[in-house]
């Protein structure tokens, strides 16, 4: 439908829009095309956007909310941080105060009943890779769990596979792993030689048996900031870390790098809670998140990957290698099976805790 123009180019639609709306963000307009969200007038309307706070939400404000406000006149109020139980309580109580919320793919899979269907008469998701479109949500960023390592600790021979990460002879010392069944069971199975396409349904017993082999060589983390620090300080040589978190410390000069081999992709969705007071504005807002320029802006700010293929034209050269959806990175990994985790998360989390106690 919409076509991308080379960086810096203007097509008809962009030109029209620029002339109509002189105050529009120049940064966002300098690349690519305008999405459908520009066409509606929502001045005087407002909506509340809730996400995970910090630099992430700030980037979303820059990349999605501000362009939306500039194009439609609707005010976007920032709120958060997103919290699963809070959101659930709000919706169950029939009084959600959030109109658009950023949730993970597993949360969406496990709580579909909490959210409105997207109105595809308003939302135009056609520019997106359809793997990242849900009946109730638009994939706003794609992130991944990667094999990360401290180059000062591991030296020349950095780990290249999860089997390496689990190899305590080759990599003595501790490794930092996530203290959750998700995605540690996938990781353990890959370390045991299972190919990504054969992972599901997970062979849970085999995964725990593999985890048994390294249980005393691990620092388990739940906080991503704590994990970053473990890698930066060289407390661990290797382990698992989010690609965006690795990008963050690497850009700050830490000797921390990653490989895309066997990466595990996940999606954050933007969704509309059932009963949201400004659901209609929220539906229009979705178009701002589909927009290629906005997605590119997001990627350039925080290295979280776009799911609109057209956005790559606007992504800076230096950021491309860090993105989970850059084709050569994507083909080395796979998308986690959110449906599998929806059905099994509760049971496997219990088993995970039980395993940790033994």
């Amino acid at each position, binding site marked *: 439908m919409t076509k991308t123009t080379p960086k810096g180019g203007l097509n008809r639609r962009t030109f029209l829009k620029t002339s109509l709306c002189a105050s529009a963000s120049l940064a966002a307009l300098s690349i690519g095309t305008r999405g459908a969200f520009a066409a509606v007038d929502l001045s005087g309307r407002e909506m509340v956007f809730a996400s995970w706070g910090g630099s992430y939400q700030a980037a979303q404000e820059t990349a999605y909310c501000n362009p939306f406000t500039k194009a439609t006149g609707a005010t976007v109020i920032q709120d958060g941080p997103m919290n699963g139980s809070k959101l659930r309580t709000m919706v169950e109580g029939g009084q959600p105060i959030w109109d658009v919320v950023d949730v993970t793919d597993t949360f969406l899979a496990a709580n579909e009943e909490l959210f409105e269907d997207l109105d595809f008469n308003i939302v135009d998701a056609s520019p997106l890779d359809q793997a990242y479109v849900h009946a109730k949500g638009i994939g706003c960023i794609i992130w991944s769990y990667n094999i990360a390592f401290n180059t000062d600790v591991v030296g020349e021979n950095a780990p290249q596979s999860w089997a390496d990460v689990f190899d305590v002879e080759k990599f003595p010392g501790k490794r930092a792993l996530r203290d959750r069944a998700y995605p540690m069971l996938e990781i353990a199975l890959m370390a045991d030689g299972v190919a990504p396409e054969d992972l599901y349904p997970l062979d849970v017993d085999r995964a725990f048996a593999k985890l048994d082999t390294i*249980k005393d060589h691990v620092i388990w983390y739940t906080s991503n900031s*704590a994990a970053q620090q473990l890698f930066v300080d060289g407390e661990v040589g290797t382990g698992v870390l989010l690609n965006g978190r690795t990008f963050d410390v690497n850009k700050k000069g830490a000797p921390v790098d990653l490989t895309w081999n066997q990466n595990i992709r996940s999606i954050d969705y933007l969704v509309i809670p059932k009963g949201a007071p400004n659901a209609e504005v929220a539906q229009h807002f979705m178009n701002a998140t589909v927009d290629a320029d906005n997605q590119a802006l997001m990627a350039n700010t925080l290295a979280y990957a776009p799911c609109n293929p057209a956005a790559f034209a606007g992504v800076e050269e230096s950021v491309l290698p860090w993105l989970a959806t850059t084709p050569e990175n994507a083909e080395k990994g796979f998308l986690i099976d959110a449906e599998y985790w929806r059905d099994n*998360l*509760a049971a496997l989390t219990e088993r995970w805790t*039980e395993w*940790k*106690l033994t």
Partner: protein
Amino acid sequence: MFLKNRNIWLLAPAVLLIGICFLFPVSWLLQRSVSEPVWGLQNYITIFSKTIYLGVLWNTVAIAGVTTLLCALIGFPVAYSMAHSSPWIRKVLIFSVLIPFWTSILVRSFAWLVILQRGGILNDFLAGIGLIAEPLDLVYNRFGVLLGMVQVLLPFMVFPLFSVITRIDGSYFSAATNLGATPIRAFFRVYLPLCLPGLATGAMLVFIISLGYFITPALLGGRGDIMIAQLIFERIDEFGDWPLASALAIVLLVGTGLLFVLVNALIKIRGRGI
């Protein structure tokens, strides 16, 4: 006596606060724990039949118990010194005991990481003076959790003890030694029983607060150092499983209450014995 009749209304704000902020939510929790998914005790049966919940409950009690013991062992000499030193030294001691209160629990926990981790200050120092060849594992295990908790909870032990010790008449101890008791015997037979009310109050405070600890075990602990508050949070935050989380909270509350009653009874019995 005075309060009993005419000025009972002085309690109104406190009663109101406890009623609204404690009794109401607790009865709500209690109700959810027995009414969902259907009426019955299924959530409690789950807790008492699965190794995970029993294991974590045991962990919680064990960590809280050892924390209390360590606080008593470390806190007693501190409280004693505070009670028997010049006003100036006393001020310095009070200040040092209170310092941990003034920092956020997150900052404090991360600070412990900087000190205790394998490449941390302490290990570097010990390796530097040649005392150790390999860095010691001082954190991401039970030791780290206990250290972090004792540091934070020490004031709850020290201050009740301090207030009791300052009121103990030193002549009892002198009398015991004059009558032929060795100082050690005099301490255990005379001095320590006199400190018991302070020790009991301190121990109860430390133990009960420890039971609800959450961030410290999550950040400084290792694989098995899971406490009940972490499980309650996980049930609610990740699964929206209010009924089971409520049941866990009620088990914790009732367990703590029983313990309180038990300790109170024990002190009364001991009190009569002296």
